[in-house]
């Protein structure tokens, strides 16, 4: 039997919906587990992003200084980086704040919609970038797996194709939204 590949999954500015869709591959998770060892993920208890990861599913847009740092680290340690879902591919819902200034977004989120609150948190939390960006604005992306969320079928197909050494052909299979 061939040596298993390593798989990392993470979400940055995303809602975890793409990860729900990953879990939605149902009994085929057994097949995935036969091909991949999950070495880093919200689903496993590993704190540091490891070196030499074969495949990374990266969900979410890049919205904070911490996201930028993380995506660079992920890129450095990953052979095949997959922009996982519309937020990673287009910035999608997180980008809806991009029409407004960050100060206005904070005011709306913490003051106007929370009666009685006059504090905008600023300590020990990542700093919001001026806008939310797609992943490929910062690092090279190998595979774009779009959809909100991508279908379980497309996720499974992508993981199998990569494991078989082929390039997944998603342009006709996947759809934005």
């Amino acid at each position, binding site marked *: 039997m061939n040596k298993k590949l390593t798989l990392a999954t993470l979400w940055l500015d995303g809602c975890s919906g793409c990860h729900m869709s990953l879990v939605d591959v149902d009994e085929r998770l057994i097949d995935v587990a036969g091909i991949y060892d999950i070495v880093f993920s919200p689903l496993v208890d590993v704190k540091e992003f490891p070196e030499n990861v074969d495949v990374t599913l990266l969900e979410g847009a890049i919205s904070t200084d911490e996201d930028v740092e993380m995506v660079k680290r992920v890129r450095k340690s990953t052979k095949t980086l997959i922009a996982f879902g519309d937020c990673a591919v*287009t910035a999608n819902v997180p980008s*809806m704040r991009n029409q407004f200034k960050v100060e206005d977004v904070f005011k709306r989120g913490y003051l106007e919609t929370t009666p009685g609150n006059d504090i905008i948190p600023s300590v020990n939390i990542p700093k919001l970038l001026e806008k939310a960006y797609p992943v490929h604005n910062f690092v090279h992306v190998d595979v774009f797996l*779009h959809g909100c969320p991508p279908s379980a079928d497309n996720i499974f197909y992508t993981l199998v194709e990569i494991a078989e050494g082929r390039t997944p052909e998603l342009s006709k299979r996947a759809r934005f939204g």
Partner: protein
Amino acid sequence: MSSSVKIKTLTIDERQVGAREDQTILDVARENGIKIPTLCSLKGLSAYGGCRMCIVEIAGTPKLLPSCMTTVEEGMVVTTNSDRIKKYRRSLLELYFSERNHVCSVCATNGYCELQSMAQEVEMTHVHFPYMYPQLDIDATHERFILDHNRCISCTRCVRVCDEIEGAHTLDIKDRGIDIRVITDLDHPWGESETCTQCGKCVHVCPTGALIERGKSVGEMSKRKQLLPYLTKMREAHE
């Protein structure tokens, strides 16, 4: 068809086809089952030539030409789907997505949108250009319909149907290029319009979520595509 109309013979994608001399390449291609992607074109409305998705190559001409605006000529050799055309169509579509705020997942027309399905058709997986994120208004002053400039691709189908079919000419456009906007009356809120007949034709010819019915949530706004062909057919039957 009068007897004075001449017939031309041309080649589209290596197929010999016959056409009336007044037909466009797009018309002839459609008659012969050759699919050319379009966004602004709609059967029953005048040709506009705005979306540029229907560009084709014509042997002997270095420029790509919009097939909806180019009439046939004897001996023309047309290619509708070369790698060069595909690349341009994809880039064009990426520009559409980057120019306004098209967030498919929260759009009322998610699943029914022609821009969204065009992305699949021309195999666009992501946008290479930086997004512009313009701050655009939504006109929700009308009691039945909503005009969302975030989703508008300026195809002018709504303007044409309002003028040519309904005869109201409530809708029009102002400004040019990237500043182009669909307006109602003399750029007054739609709800105050004295010319709008509330027929809703504009909503149903709109290819995206720019024109929707009030109260429709994410993925609920399917468009009645048969509306315009039906009206056109009925009118022809009366003539």
